[in-house]
């Protein structure tokens, strides 16, 4: 009695005929079952296929392992349970989704109820992996994990310590530390002290919306308190201007750019 050959024929024909789908198979031949019973070379083939595939689904798993290998290595009661379920469905007249072409993958909507990403279990490492020589791996300097001891201990009650001053405080007020000597930020484009807040903004109240007038009338333009405020904000001292004509690198004549003949 060649039970496995019978299983291969039954399961293969069921898949070919659309009686069964790869999801039906993986409902019984679960990743846990595969982890226990599938030989490591087949696991290697499966992992290789999964890594290179844009999508990992039941069809990929079944096609990669192959029905003969499944029936060879998976215990017969498990395969039989799968066949039994298929027969019960076939005899019960339960209508399932029509068979798809072997080359096409079922779309996500059609298989949403039964098809889900198959998390491959961690291959059980123990004895066999120890026998294989470890692959040399380039070891770099020890870089602490982002979840270091201060944050990664999982204690939510610990409050996060605010980061300390990034710049060293310098008493000599030299170097980069001078940037942090005062709380005031480094002036950007304004050498002169900042002018006091423009009074017209505070003095001139925003016009109110009157009856018959919508707020959008004022939303069309940004209300600026004074016309000359922008000029004050962009005021630049003469010292900050660069004399481009005196700079050595500056090309002042377009003649130099032309190719010499």
């Amino acid at each position, binding site marked *: *009695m*060649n*039970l496995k*050959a*019978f299983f291969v*024929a*039954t399961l293969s*024909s*069921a898949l070919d*005929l*659309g*009686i069964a789908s790869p999801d039906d198979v993986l409902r019984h031949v*679960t990743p*846990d*079952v595969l982890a*226990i019973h599938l030989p490591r070379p087949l696991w290697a083939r499966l992992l290789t296929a999964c890594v290179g595939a844009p999508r990992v689904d039941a069809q990929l798993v079944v096609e990669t392992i192959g029905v003969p290998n499944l029936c060879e290595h998976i*215990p*017969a*009661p*498990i*395969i*039989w*349970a799968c066949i*039994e379920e298929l*027969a019960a*469905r*076939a*005899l019960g007249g*339960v*209508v*399932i989704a029509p*068979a798809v072409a072997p080359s096409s993958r079922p779309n996500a909507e059609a298989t949403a109820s039964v098809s889900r990403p198959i998390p491959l279990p961690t291959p059980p490492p123990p004895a066999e992996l120890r026998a294989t020589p470890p692959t040399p791996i380039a070891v770099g300097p020890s870089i602490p994990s982002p979840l270091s001891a201060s944050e990664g201990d999982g204690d939510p009650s610990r409050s996060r310590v605010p980061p300390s001053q990034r710049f060293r405080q310098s008493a000599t007020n030299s170097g980069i530390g001078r940037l942090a000597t005062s709380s005031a930020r480094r002036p950007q484009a304004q050498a002169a002290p900042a002018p006091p807040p423009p009074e017209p903004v505070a003095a001139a109240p925003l016009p109110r919306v009157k009856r018959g007038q919508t707020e959008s009338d004022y939303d069309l333009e940004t209300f600026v308190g004074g016309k000359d405020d922008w000029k004050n904000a962009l005021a630049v001292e003469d010292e900050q201007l660069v004399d481009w004509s005196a700079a050595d690198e500056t090309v002042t004549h377009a003649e130099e750019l032309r190719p010499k003949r």
Partner: protein
Amino acid sequence: MSNDQRQAWFARMMESGLENDIFAPSDVLAHATPDVLASHLPAELLSKVLASSLAAGSMTPERVLETVTPELMAKHLPHDVLWQCIAAAAARAGVNKTVGS
């Protein structure tokens, strides 16, 4: 699932079961009894069965199944009868034990 698909699958299962000695022709006829055959096989097929048996001088399960092939069984006989044959063979093989994976 169309009837053709189911029919083809059952035909394949019966064929494979016989090829791989999962069950014997006598096991098939233990479920596909003469009453079942007489009730479901078309007249011309019944005629062929009888004619071949008459020519051989005996009607054995093997000879019946030479005429009533797995395709014809799946086409004419109730599938639940065929499944009972398959399931009984699986039970004899001990593969339908409870799985404790």
